[in-house]
């Protein structure tokens, strides 16, 4: 759920209209079917929003956590974030690595 929340939240920083999400949903959305739905919707939302960007949009400035960054930088952050957790998930699946109890 953390990945889905991050996808929606980071996407909203770029100006895309996304559903409101909150960190508390990490605790409340615990059913596998619901979680998969959120995950798929968030992944699709990134792909769709990215496809709708026009050339000038990439360098548009946005603000996050007190910093001014570009829209392109935000997409880079989204993919880096997803890849980090993808790696953790793979390691977790094969029992190499545990981050929490």
């Amino acid at each position: 759920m953390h990945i889905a929340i991050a996808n929606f939240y980071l996407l909203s920083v770029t100006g895309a209209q996304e559903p409101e999400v909150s960190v508390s949903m990490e605790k409340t959305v615990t059913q596998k079917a619901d979680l998969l739905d959120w995950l798929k919707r968030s992944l699709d939302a990134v792909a769709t929003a990215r496809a709708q960007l026009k050339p000038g949009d990439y360098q548009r400035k946005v603000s996050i956590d007190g910093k001014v960054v570009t829209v392109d930088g935000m997409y880079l952050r989204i993919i880096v974030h997803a890849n980090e957790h993808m790696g953790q998930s793979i390691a977790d699946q094969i029992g190499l690595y545990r981050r929490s109890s």
Partner: protein
Amino acid sequence: MPSGVFANTLTTAQLRDVRVGYESVREAVGDDIDVAVHCHGELDTPSAIGVAKAVEPMNPLWIEDPLNPVFSEGRMELRRSTNLRLLTGEKMELVRGFRPFLDNGAVDVIHPDLCFSGGITGTKKLADYAALSRTPVALHNVGGLVMTYANAQFAVSIQNFFKCESALAHPGRYVEAMAASNPPQVSKGEMTLPKGVGLAVDLNPDFLKKNLAPGEQNEGLWEGYDGEWSHASRQLIALAEATPPQKFSWRVPRRVSGPSAKCTCISPLPTSIC
């Protein structure tokens, strides 16, 4: 090295051919070029011992994978039978895979592959463990430019690096052609460490697109964000689908606590599971 057709046992005639063949190689290249003997893990113990005796006069660099990857008493029997260097490890994983070989002195050189043995971090731990018994590391590398540069960077980061194989100088020069800039520099068998950001790899996307394997999808890093995101999406969904339902229940993390704890992967998200 000949393979048994129906078994992993070499006949006396085949062992004779091995001896004659390697003696001919040595005679042809002289004493200043190393000759390695590769058995592909196909032999049984008596045949491996027989090969070691057959090639000993030729003074090979090492005997690679004389037996299958699993540690066994056969490894020790072979060890006791020859003073030639024994090398193995291209199919082994992590320190735990190599440990019986190192702890028992069954090999003289370990041969990890960065892709299989635990990545850069896992293989670094392995190299450090091997260094405790003063065992050198030869790196197995049959990959392309990324693997070759990763091996080069890794090699200079460990104290017990010995040699690394590569597909450089292949007649088709396909590894060299993968570089858009900063191509590999090799002279007399020694590669200059590539300098640049990260692994110092600059891939040539046009060459890669033109040389896809049959059925291989044209996607990935060189296709840009869309291909990368598509790949990540499929992977994340597959991983989530493969996860048992009970694992999605909220678990209190051990390491981070408190309402102000922030995710280490991305600072604006105040969470504790990252």
